[in-house]
């Protein structure tokens, strides 16, 4: 379990960094980048190939980020004068181009065979107790800062709602969510029993499951309507419950993380990576928030809204778009280095276009233009990925390949439901949707 949570945290952190890059490009600047994975590929390969030559990791990572930024510069120079959809087409083309280069240039990348073995960083070290305690303290501090940010956000959301209404509604929302969870859990258990005992043919069980799921969803949609009629602050209540669940899960996961940091030598490379990657996420979040609130970030947002206005007000739109593309690319390059470290092998197949779209899912889930949203989106995405991988196998009568497709369908469904009820994303601002252009 410990190793499992550690790797979950690493994946979340890697993709949080990756989506933070995309969020800078799309959420802030409005650049539709469908080839974000290209930057990650460059970052991963550069880092690994350089470490194989004996370059220290941090330097190799920086080189990877720099090369990714350079790719951003190239893409930008050739395409940023185009309109948005063309940028999307070109970027997805570039990402495939980079992947195909990785497949074919075997002298450099070893082709489809991939780079199987490279020195894993931090694998050899065995920190003494005081060092480990300091690491735990830093890690705990970062987590605490995260909670503080979440708390501030929640306060901001709820300041208009009277306290008494909040308590009532939260209790009702808690009941709603708990009963839904119990119902889903119960039907899952029943399905599991049925699948084990082979009492029903798989097709019947499958259809039965779908019908059951649809019925539960219909019931709870109806219930939600009733509830929001009865409780005016229903959305706030749900927000509180949701944040509470996230907070509890967060504490639960961090407790494992802290334990494994304390037993650093149990799996040195992974534990070290977890520590480093969480620090990178925190640092990037801080830096990006600061940028977003600076005049520099204001220009990016202005370009997203209407680049002609930015131009008329004396801003060099092309140059700022280029900066956004390059910086987002460099960030994705760093995530590539982390990704290679986590996977311990690098294949061209790791960098299929689906990786880009996963990042899009995360950014949209969390709320475009919200850095915290990108991180939360990544956590939800990976939580979903890992949980469903183990649970659905026991319940759904499908073989492995189909199950994989089914999980993608489910996340698509989840995204659709979210787009209907909360089109601004989880942490997005609702008011922004009601504005005319």
């Amino acid at each position, binding site marked *: 379990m410990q190793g499992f949570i550690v790797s979950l945290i690493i994946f979340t952190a890697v993709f949080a960094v990756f989506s933070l890059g995309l969020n800078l490009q799309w959420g802030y600047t409005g650049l539709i980048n469908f080839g974000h994975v290209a930057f990650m590929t460059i970052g991963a390969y550069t880092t690994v190939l350089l470490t194989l030559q004996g370059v220290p990791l941090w330097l190799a990572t920086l080189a990877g980020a720099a090369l990714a930024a350079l790719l951003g510069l190239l893409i930008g120079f050739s395409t940023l004068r185009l309109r948005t959809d063309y940028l999307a087409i070109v970027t997805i083309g570039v990402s495939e181009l980079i992947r195909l280069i990785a497949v074919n240039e075997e002298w450099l990348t070893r082709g489809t065979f991939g780079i199987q073995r490279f020195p894993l960083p931090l694998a050899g070290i065995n920190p003494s107790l005081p060092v480990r305690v300091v690491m735990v303290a830093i890690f705990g501090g970062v987590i605490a800062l995260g909670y503080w940010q979440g708390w501030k956000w929640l306060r901001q959301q709820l300041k208009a709602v009277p306290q008494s209404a909040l308590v009532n509604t939260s209790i009702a929302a808690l009941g709603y969510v708990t009963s839904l969870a119990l119902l889903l859990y119960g039907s899952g258990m029943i399905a599991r029993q049925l699948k084990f005992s082979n009492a029903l043919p798989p097709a019947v069980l499958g259809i039965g499951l779908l019908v059951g799921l649809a019925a539960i969803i219909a019931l709870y949609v109806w219930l939600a309507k009733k509830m929001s009629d009865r409780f005016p602050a229903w959305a706030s209540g749900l927000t509180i419950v949701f944040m509470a669940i996230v907070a509890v899960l967060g504490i639960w996961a961090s407790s494992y993380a802290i334990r494994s940091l304390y037993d650093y030598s149990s799996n040195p490379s992974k534990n070290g990576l977890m520590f480093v990657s969480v620090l990178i996420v925190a640092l990037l979040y801080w830096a990006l928030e600061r940028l977003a609130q600076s005049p520099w970030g204001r220009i990016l947002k202005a370009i997203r809204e209407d680049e002609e206005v930015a*131009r008329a*007000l004396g801003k060099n739109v092309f140059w700022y778009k280029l900066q956004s593309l390059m910086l987002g690319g460099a960030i994705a390059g760093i995530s590539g280095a982390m990704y290679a470290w986590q996977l311990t092998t690098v294949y061209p197949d790791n960098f299929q276009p689906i990786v880009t779209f996963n990042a899009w899912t995360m950014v949209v889930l969390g709320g475009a233009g919200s850095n915290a949203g990108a991180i939360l989106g990544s956590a939800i995405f990976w939580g979903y990925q890992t949980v469903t991988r183990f649970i659905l196998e026991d319940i759904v009568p499908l073989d492995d390949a189909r199950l994989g497709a089914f999980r993608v369908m489910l996340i698509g469904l989840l995204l659709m439901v979210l787009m209907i009820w909360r089109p601004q994303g989880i942490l997005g601002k609702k008011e922004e949707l009601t*504005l005319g252009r």
Partner: protein
Amino acid sequence: MVDNFSERASEQEIGRSAFAPLLAASGLSKSFGGIRAVDNASIEVLPGSITGLIGPNGAGKTTLFNLLSNFIRPDQGEVVFDGSQIQQLPPHKITQQGLVRTFQVARVLSRLSVMENMLLAAQQQTGENFWNVWLRPGQSAREERQQREYASEILASVGLSHMAQSYAGSLSGGQRKLLEIARAMMVRPKMILLDEPAAGVNPTLINQICDYIRYWNQQGMTFLVIEHNMDLIMSLCDRVWVLAEGRNLAEGTPAMVQRDPKVLEAYLGQ
């Protein structure tokens, strides 16, 4: 309130003859396919004036604006602003030189607050440079405070103070027009190109907008105004240029232009 405009105006008068135009364009042409939208057009705007640009629909007024601000590159012709040629400069450089434009349909940055819309317009901000965000945060914050104060003053003078923290996208049509003009003032330009400031605005607000333009003009700001509202042109402008089918038709004081038979013909037909 905003006294640096008058300073700037007096500097200009000392520096060169008061009658040298601030903006002078000559021989401007632009074709779209076979249509000559602007055909050998000229225009001059004297410093400190409110100059009008009128003409029937499709006369090429907005295209001429786009050529002046280089949002569209002219096929031919030259534009001299404040003593230097600007027809080769990219649009943002032209704004940085002190010539700022507004749009016919008010364009606000919806998902930014009204205040952010204003702050964006300030020129030469330290914090606009990526590295300065990290290396000179103090100076950046100080400037930001000053700009915020200045923006509040302008917003107060156009009566938008109460909306400063709202999203610009939540403004009404008339308020958007006001914000757009206020934002242009925030650039601290030498001259503003106003494209139909009164289009789609109720009569009371039109009068208000006129008052603001007049007030800022008295502070030393130069305006070039496209407008269909003849009352506004007649009451506001010192000088009017008439454009028809992309060519100069007439120019002179409002009263002269109003009586010019060629102008009447262009507007009303024979």
